[in-house]
């Protein structure tokens, strides 16, 4: 898989999430179901690695990038993880102007709730796949 594709796919997933693990559903969709670049097991391993290391929880995407395209994929994933954070700069300015508007806050709240639902669904999928592997191992 091309590092540019890794960057674009991860950026899409990260830029539409509001928590470290919130990108997981879109990553599963793009890397596993649509492009078949990774298996569910590999995504689970990436989450496991991300959880086992200090630092941002969302850094598990670096492992996703590495598994999809080696070191260049890892670098692309690192860049994809950093890119949305730069949005904080204009947000610092815009927040004082727009964030008090009820419709804007309600839209952000709704996105956060939908993210949580998507995250629950990903967690259930992860647990089911891991459970199958544990059962097969015994």
């Amino acid at each position, binding site marked *: 898989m091309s590092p540019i594709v890794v960057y674009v796919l991860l950026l899409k*997933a*990260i*830029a*539409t999430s*509001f*928590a*470290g*693990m*919130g990108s*997981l*559903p*879109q990553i599963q969709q793009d890397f596993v179901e649509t492009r078949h670049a990774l298996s569910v097991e590999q995504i*689970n391993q990436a*989450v*496991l*690695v*991300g*959880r086992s*290391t*200090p*630092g*941002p*929880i*969302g*850094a598990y995407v*670096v*492992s996703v990038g*590495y*598994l999809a395209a080696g*070191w260049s994929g890892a670098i692309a*994933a*690192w860049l994809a*993880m*950093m890119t*949305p*954070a*730069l*949005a*904080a700069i204009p947000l*610092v300015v815009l927040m004082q102007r727009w964030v008090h508007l*009820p419709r*804007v806050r*309600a*839209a952000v*709240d*709704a*996105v956060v*709730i*939908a993210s*949580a639902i*998507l995250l629950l*669904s*990903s*967690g259930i999928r*992860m*647990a089911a796949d891991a*459970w199958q*592997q*544990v059962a097969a*191992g015994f």
Partner: protein
Amino acid sequence: MELLRRTFTANGLLDETGNAGLVAVSRLTPGTNILAYCVGLGWSLHRWPGALAALVASSLPASLIICALTAAIVRIDRYPAVRVILAVAVLAATLLVFSSAASLLRPYLRRPALMRASIVAIMSVAMLAADVTPVRILLLAAALGAAISGSARPSDPQ
């Protein structure tokens, strides 16, 4: 985030008001909250150089460790015993996923916001069941949220 707040307030580089603003911005910024917090903090101290330095410092060390760990796991993954151990560890890791979802939902479980949150949640579950892609679900949720706004909303998510 709490460690950063303590460190920078102790040094006189950040006050409580500034910290509250950065927390709000980090919640509203897509992606990983802590990275957005660090960028906002770096920006408020030294503009672009500060923001970029904070971003690299907060993401690069963990990313390097993750690459090394992933490379190691790829090498040992072919052994059946290792695969079972990894699967058990993944089962434990799913707790993190569930706890992330719970922490996102918690601020909306209070009474004034509960009805609106329930509507958005039910719509999200229905779209998931209908195989709608995550990005579309989030966009439709934003539209629905804006359409049904007007009732009381919770305080900022924690």
